[in-house]
């Protein structure tokens, strides 16, 4: 379905692509990602020159602008180590989207090579490192958001396996889980009515099962849903998967 073929992981060193959203808004998610990886004995390198994966322009159809950014990203993440991203969407951009927009470019091979060593965090932990369960304790009923850009990848099963193995944590199912929340990047601002309608429907389903936390492998969906819920005056507690994994090591929900 996606160009998600990955090279096997050797060694215990990774490059972190923190994502532009964590760079601008969600520093604790990026920090949690570092702590989770270090807990697994992985050395985390943060290439300072990183900016964005290039997806906004790619989705907007401005592939020339997007390729500029992807080329920058390819240079910034030079090397052989796996690149780990706390986002299914940015990860899919690297191993699928970028490959698509470079099909006819002379440097397609380099872009493809970066894609083959790029991983979403949960997928990396479970399928890259072979870690099947998570220690610690986390007393909470958690609903897991299925980020759309994880379709066709191993992210959701990996996140379910990790969350489901944490002592005290129970996963709750909710209706129409396969439906998009309506974020969709620039879709959220070019289709404001549809985006909000889709978000409200998602919130309705989530609220119906009253989880303690709504957990996602992507902050973008949570920025949209959390922002909608707050503007409605009925906030929901949203957490990134990395935050739950880290906090489980520290005994439970916090923040």
């Amino acid at each position, binding site marked *: *379905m996606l160009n998600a073929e990955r090279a096997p992981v050797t060694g215990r060193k990774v490059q972190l692509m923190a994502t*532009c959203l*964590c*760079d*601008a*808004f*969600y*520093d604790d998610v990026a*920090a949690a990602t570092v702590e989770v990886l270090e807990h697994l004995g992985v*050395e985390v390198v943060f290439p*300072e*020159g*990183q*900016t*964005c994966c*290039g997806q906004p*322009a*790619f*989705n*907007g*159809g*401005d*592939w020339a*602008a*997007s390729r*500029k*950014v992807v*080329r*920058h990203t390819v240079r*910034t993440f030079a090397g052989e180590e796996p690149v780990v991203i706390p986002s299914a969407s940015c990860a899919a951009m690297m191993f699928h*989207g970028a490959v*698509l*927009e470079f099909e006819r470019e002379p440097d397609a091979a380099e872009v493809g090579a970066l894609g083959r060593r790029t991983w979403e965090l949960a997928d990396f932990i479970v399928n890259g490192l072979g870690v099947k369960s998570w220690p610690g304790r986390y007393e909470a009923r958690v609903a897991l958001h299925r980020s*759309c*850009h994880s*379709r*066709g990848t191993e992210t959701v099963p990996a996140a379910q396996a990790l969350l489901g193995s944490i002592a005290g944590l129970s996963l709750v199912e909710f209706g129409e889980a*396969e*439906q*998009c929340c*309506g974020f*969709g*990047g620039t*879709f*959220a*601002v*070019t*289709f*404001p*009515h*549809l*985006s*909000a*309608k*889709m978000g409200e429907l998602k919130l309705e389903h989530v609220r119906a099962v009253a989880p303690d936390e709504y957990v996602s492998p992507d902050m973008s969906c949570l920025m*949209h849903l959390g*922002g*909608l819920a*707050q*503007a409605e005056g009925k906030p929901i507690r949203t957490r990134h998967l990395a935050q739950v994994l880290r906090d489980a090591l520290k005994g439970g929900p916090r923040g």
Partner: protein
Amino acid sequence: MSQPIDQFAARLPADKRASVYQSTKTTHEKRTRLLFDQFGDPDRLRHLAGEIKQHAIENLDTYLPQVEQRLRASGAQVHWASTGQAACEAVLRIMRDRGATRMVKAKTMVSEEIELARFLEGHGLEAVETDLGEFIVQIDDDHPSHIVRPIIHKNRREIATSFEREGLGAYNDDPATITRRARHHLRHKYLAADVGLTGANFVSAESGRIVLVTNEGNSRFCLAATRCHIVLVGIEKIVPRDRDLAVLLNLLGRSGTAQDLTVYTEFIGGPRRAGQPDGPEEMHVIFVDNGRTEVLASDCREILRCIRCGACLNVCPIYRQASGHAYRSVYPGPVGAVLSPLLMGERFPQKADLPKASSLCGACHEVCPVNIPIPDLLLRLRARAKEENVPSPGSPPMGPWALLAAQPAVWKAALAGGRIINHLPVKLIPVPALQAWAAKRTLPEWRGGEFRKWMKARKRPSA
């Protein structure tokens, strides 16, 4: 300003949205249960079906001459129509040659595409839709809003009102009564008709068999009483072998209407032969190109695999909220957002907004029985729209962003500078995208660069 489809959705009456949403959701969920209960690996089946159809469209130069030969051998006449106009004229010619004035029609999307019924009516000929949904669309002078369920946007009260207006009995919105009245009315049309027109879901290159699936049996009636059968079919409907139908028919009913098989599956091997008791004595097959060859030459050719099941419409969150008419096209929903602009040819810009009406969630790809990578095709068409400089209302310009994101020093400065949004009311920030965001959502606190500081400050465990 938002996009046309968003504006349409915002204006859509709540009861229309509710009926579209309920119906699509129910069918989608039933479809999923059926496929996963009955097949060990439905995804493998989708991939196989996709490979069959991809092979077929990539080898049309072999299969089309082959199917023509088979059809002629079985006694059918074959016509090639490069445009919709040419297809309409071919139908007209066939009818005039026979002195025919009345046609009964089964449901066919390609006849909608080429606006055949209107064309024939313009030439003083009658063309009656016999599929119940299409019949209602016709008496209302409306357009189908779904490729399988043309009247998904209508409720029974509207239909009862239309029937009353058309003299089909006093107001009665009981579905069984509506159906009985339509049936009674159409029986007379079948008996009086000179020509029956159907589409084809598949045409086998191996045998020349025309395969038709319906639920109402109306396509059989179209052939039962008429002397002349006209098949109108897109050139992409070819399958190489009869046995390929085992895969495709298993997926079509389940994907489209959540049925193991449709109620009727017809295999038509030609006109009536000597010694056969009934069936039309004359059969014409009109293969319609109407832009398909151009699609085949493009980087979106996978869309020609489509078997018109409607599963992508049913699962699509945009279609569910906006309804089919939002797409201003015969083919709505995700498949339509790809196919409709492509079929416009040089007038592509008129429908270049359709591929943008997607959050790229990928649900359409996940359900597609022939595994069409619809999101990739939507993206390619967005890139084409950008290359052709088609204006896109409300889309934020990406040039400035790319400048930022390709230069780390400028990026870092922007991370620090972005803090201003924590202190200014959003209304004072003249960025339309930000305004659109903030109309219904709060903005998170800007914490640009905080992670970089944290990362620098902490001691690396290995150090």
